């Protein structure tokens, strides 16, 4: 009312004064107004309008310089007061900071992964234009087929949506001319590969179109890591020459330290330098597929348009080459964003972990709010005294928010350190799911996330405490020791918070429980081999020296004889791959599948041809791995390159393709009937693509009749790792240019194959364990507080004849009621949420009764345990003491 009568200038001045802190305004606002009025009158008398304007300018400047100083002063005061309070309540401070640190740390760590892997664009210019091209044989269930050279040429010539299309494959070659022969991982790529990705060289140049012409002199690009580690970052590396595949290769450049996709390589060469890729047979055969293909979409082109484009090309190929793309295989091709391609396996796991981490933070928040409330109950008198002494309401709110903010900041800093410390572990884990793991680090955006998490946390529990201080504080001065009226209101809120904590903990524990159950089931799976005391290693011969099949045969036989002569070796075999080999698991059955025809069995129109995985193995492969023979015979030394083609199949293949007949003696062909292979035996199924993979039909071809071997497998009498050196020496005795790498025991390989579910399970279990501890401590804390607030009442009950056992039951019952409520809500929540983790589980239903009951029982037991101590204390209350105390 009064305000309305004021002249405009006074209203304006009042508005201006509002930038000053509340207390300052209360103290000096009225006087300032008076002074300003006088100044204004005087200025108008002396200087008219100009004088008034000058006064306004001085006034505005004065207020805006005074305000920040005053606010700062209050903040400093609040902080130092908050620090004093924190020091005084060391126990509370430590528990609160630690709880928040765990919550914020878990979130920061997982967010740094989600940010690097799922959110951040690819580290290439216009990375969203990059696409991964795939061919499919849909009717054979093959989703991801590689490309042959003629196919790449067709796609390159016919597409209308890409500005460039490049190919990639990787191989291991031996590099000479730099100390010992060095086995290098080599990416074989199109000349414009790096231009397409937008990668500029650190030194020298990348490839030029001329480098890829047939017969061009071979050139190499070194990866940043290889250059740094093997050449000490030699600035004069460009122009140096090395020998590889019996040809001189010249280094033309060094790549910058960018993440390499799809794989990390030591060096890169062009397609014309690769002895396999440039081979005439490879260049001309439409069905010799070993390349992957990437493209960059033209500006403005959508993925859907690129997809339609590639479907059209695939349809064209089908009609042009019906022999290669018959209707029954369901040939198709498509484009998908590279980013999606690189991260789709990691996505469900990462989102699950992010959800779990968010739950932990919620529980931590609820717990700290609870701790704050408990402390508020004790501080009511202090706050009331401060109010009585003239501290304004907003001043107190400000003080409480400052305190919670400081706590959250301390928690945030500690959490950041925790996240930083766990980064290596996490990168290692995520590396199993996506090649983008290398990009994980704590950058400004992760720091911003941590800050937001900390501020958000402090606002949540700070506001809770501040809101509660809105109760009539003066009543606590009049009231007795613990403010019973206020206490009851606090208790209801505290109970609600406890119920929430229990519910969230229950859901987390269910998630962890399901993952652990699934892992146990996985570990119990019989893989179909005897993995104990078997050593496997990659043995890369310099195959350029052994081109004729007979030469290969001789050297392989020499190798096996030499290794078997080593004391302690029970048996040895070579093969194209072995069970649980990391590459085999990554590639999956599709990477080694082939389609074939069975003699005398014509395909009906529209029927798909049979498909099977294939491995080429030497005769002792089965005995070395302990794969049992079920029918017929195993492969034999007589199955040479010139002998009739033979194969051993597994039981799955026998059941699937010869369900009611004996497969022995049946013949199959993979090349349209040009060559036939007879089935000579049936062996047991092996889960070689991972314990959670049902064994697919498998053909084992005789090694001498198939591709050159890549791995050596040895069964030893003693601990296999102790034999590694002797076996490596034996290999080098046969051919010193052979690189022996990736030495693993089969047990290690089997263990590694479960790494992803194991780490997911252990991370979830850690989160759930944290939640359980926090929630249990919460129940214990609130029950203890309730008991201490009700000492008098309980004393009266006992004095009136209540037996200690009934008091014990009463308190215990209250704790259990909260826990039961929490578990009830948790069960409902878990039913909804566990559907999301279904894809990560192995032979465990998402609503597994056993897990639900075990977790429920654990939580109730923990709650009972946590309430027992306060209940025991309550039952031991001495009524005379209790009544005298007040």
């Amino acid at each position: 009312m009064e305000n309305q009568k004021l002249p405009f200038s006074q209203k304006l001045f009042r508005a201006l004064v509002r930038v000053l802190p509340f207390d300052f305004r209360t103290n000096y606002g009225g006087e300032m107004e008076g002074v300003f009025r006088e100044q204004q009158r005087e200025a108008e008398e002396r200087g008219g309008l100009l004088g008034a304007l000058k006064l306004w300018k001085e006034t505005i400047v004065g207020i805006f310089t005074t305000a920040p100083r005053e606010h700062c002063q209050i903040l400093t005061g609040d902080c130092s007061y908050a620090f004093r309070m924190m020091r005084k309540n060391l126990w509370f401070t430590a528990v609160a900071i630690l709880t928040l640190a765990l919550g914020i740390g878990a979130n920061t760590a997982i967010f740094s992964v989600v940010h690097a892997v799922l959110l951040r664009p690819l580290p290439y210019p216009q990375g969203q234009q990059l696409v991964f091209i795939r061919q499919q044989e849909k009717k054979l269930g093959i989703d991801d087929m590689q490309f042959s050279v003629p196919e790449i040429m067709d796609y390159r010539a016919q597409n209308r949506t890409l500005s460039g299309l490049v190919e990639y494959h990787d191989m291991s070659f031996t590099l000479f001319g730099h100390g010992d022969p060095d086995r290098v991982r080599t990416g074989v790529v199109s000349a414009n590969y790096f231009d397409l990705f937008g990668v500029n060289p650190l030194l020298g140049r990348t490839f030029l179109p001329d480098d890829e012409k047939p017969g061009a002199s071979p050139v190499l690009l070194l990866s940043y890591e290889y250059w740094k580690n093997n050449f000490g970052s030699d600035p004069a590396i460009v122009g140096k020459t090395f020998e590889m595949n019996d040809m001189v290769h010249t280094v033309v450049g060094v790549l910058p330290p960018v993440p390499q996709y799809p794989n990390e390589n030591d060096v890169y060469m062009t397609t014309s330098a690769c002895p396999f890729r440039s081979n005439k047979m490879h260049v001309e055969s439409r069905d010799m597929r070993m390349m992957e293909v990437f493209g960059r979409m033209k500006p403005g082109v959508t993925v859907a348009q690129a997809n339609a484009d590639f479907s059209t090309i695939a349809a064209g190929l089908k009609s042009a080459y019906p022999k290669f793309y018959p209707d029954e295989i369901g040939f198709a091709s498509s484009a998908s964003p590279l980013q999606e391609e690189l991260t789709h396996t990691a996505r469900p796991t990462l989102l699950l972990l992010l959800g779990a981490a968010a739950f932990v933070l919620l529980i931590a928040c609820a717990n700290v709010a609870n701790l704050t409330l408990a402390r508020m109950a004790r501080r009511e008198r202090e706050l009331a005294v401060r109010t009585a002494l003239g501290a304004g309401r907003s001043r107190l709110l400000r003080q409480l928010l400052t305190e919670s903010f400081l706590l959250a900041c301390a928690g945030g800093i500690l959490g950041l350190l925790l996240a930083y410390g766990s980064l290596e572990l996490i990168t290692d884990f995520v590396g199993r799911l996506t090649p983008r793991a290398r990009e994980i680090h704590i950058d400004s955006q992760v720091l911003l996330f941590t800050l937001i998490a900390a501020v958000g946390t402090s606002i949540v529990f700070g506001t809770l405490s501040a809101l509660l201080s809105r109760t009539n504080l003066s009543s606590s001065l009049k009231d007795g020791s613990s403010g019973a009226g206020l206490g009851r209101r606090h208790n209801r809120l505290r109970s609600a918070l406890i119920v929430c904590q229990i519910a969230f903990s229950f859901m987390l524990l269910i998630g962890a429980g399901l993952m652990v159950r699934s892992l146990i089931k996985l570990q119990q799976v019989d893989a179909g081999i005897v993995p104990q005391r078997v050593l496997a290693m990659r043995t890369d011969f310099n195959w350029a020296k052994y081109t004729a099949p007979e030469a290969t045969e001789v050297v392989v036989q020499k190798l096996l004889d030499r290794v078997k002569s080593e004391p302690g070796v029970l048996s040895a075999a070579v093969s194209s791959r072995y069970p649980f080999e990391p590459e085999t698991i990554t590639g999956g059955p599709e990477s080694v599948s082939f389609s074939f025809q069975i003699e005398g069995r014509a395909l009906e129109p529209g029927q798909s041809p049979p498909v099977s995985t294939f491995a080429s193995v030497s005769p002792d492969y089965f005995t070395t791995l302990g794969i049992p023979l079920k029918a017929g015979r195993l492969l034999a030394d007589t199955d040479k390159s010139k002998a009739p083609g033979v194969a051993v199949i597994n039981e799955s293949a026998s059941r699937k393709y010869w369900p009611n007949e004996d497969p022995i003696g049946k013949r199959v062909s993979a090349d349209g009937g040009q060559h036939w292979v007879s089935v000579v035996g049936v062996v047991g199924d092996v889960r070689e693509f991972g314990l959670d993979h049902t064994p697919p039909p498998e053909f084992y071809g005789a090694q001498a009749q198939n591709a050159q071997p890549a791995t050596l497998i040895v069964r030893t009498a003693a601990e296999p790792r102790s034999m590694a050196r002797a076996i490596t020496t034996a290999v080098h005795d046969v051919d010193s240019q052979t690189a022996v790498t990736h030495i693993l025991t089969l047990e290690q390989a089997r263990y590694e194959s479960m790494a992803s579910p194991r780490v997911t399970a252990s991370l979830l279990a850690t989160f759930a364990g944290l939640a359980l501890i926090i929630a249990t401590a919460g129940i214990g804390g609130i029950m203890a507080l309730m008991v201490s607030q009700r000492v008098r009442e309980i004393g009266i009950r006992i004095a009136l004849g209540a037996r200690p056992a009934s008091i014990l039951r009463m308190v215990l019952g209250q704790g259990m009621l909260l826990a039961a409520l929490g578990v009830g809500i948790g069960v409902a929540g878990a039913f909804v949420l566990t559907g999301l983790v279904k894809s990560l589980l192995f032979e465990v239903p998402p609503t597994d009764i056993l897990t639900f009951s075990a977790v429920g029982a654990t939580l109730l037991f923990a709650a009972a345990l946590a309430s027992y101590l306060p209940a025991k204390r309550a039952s031991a209350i001495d009524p005379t003491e209790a009544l005298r105390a007040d």
Partner: protein
Amino acid sequence: MPKKRETESFLPLTPAMFHILLALADGEKHGYAILKEVARRTDDKVRLSAGTLYGNLARLESSGLIAESNRRPEVVLDDERRRYYLLTEFGREVAVAEAERMEEALGQARAKHLFRKPKLA
């Protein structure tokens, strides 16, 4: 000794603070009177705005250099919204220390013959 160190911790005073202390040296005054006195004494060279004045008063008051006076002028002259401020003993010590500091600086300037014509001799 500790007293001296406490005094020195306020030095040098800002011009506004020094002038406010000076204005209160010859008796207690209310805010507007302080402002007028400072302007008059400095020929309007130091002009305090309401915000600056009360920001300084608040700080001087909280550090005990000035205090609110209990004595009020005669009822006819009194405006109850006005508060009167007085210089405390400690405030006087700080003001004296500041004046001495300035005097010493002035002496050094003279010794260096900074002034061509010794006007203040």
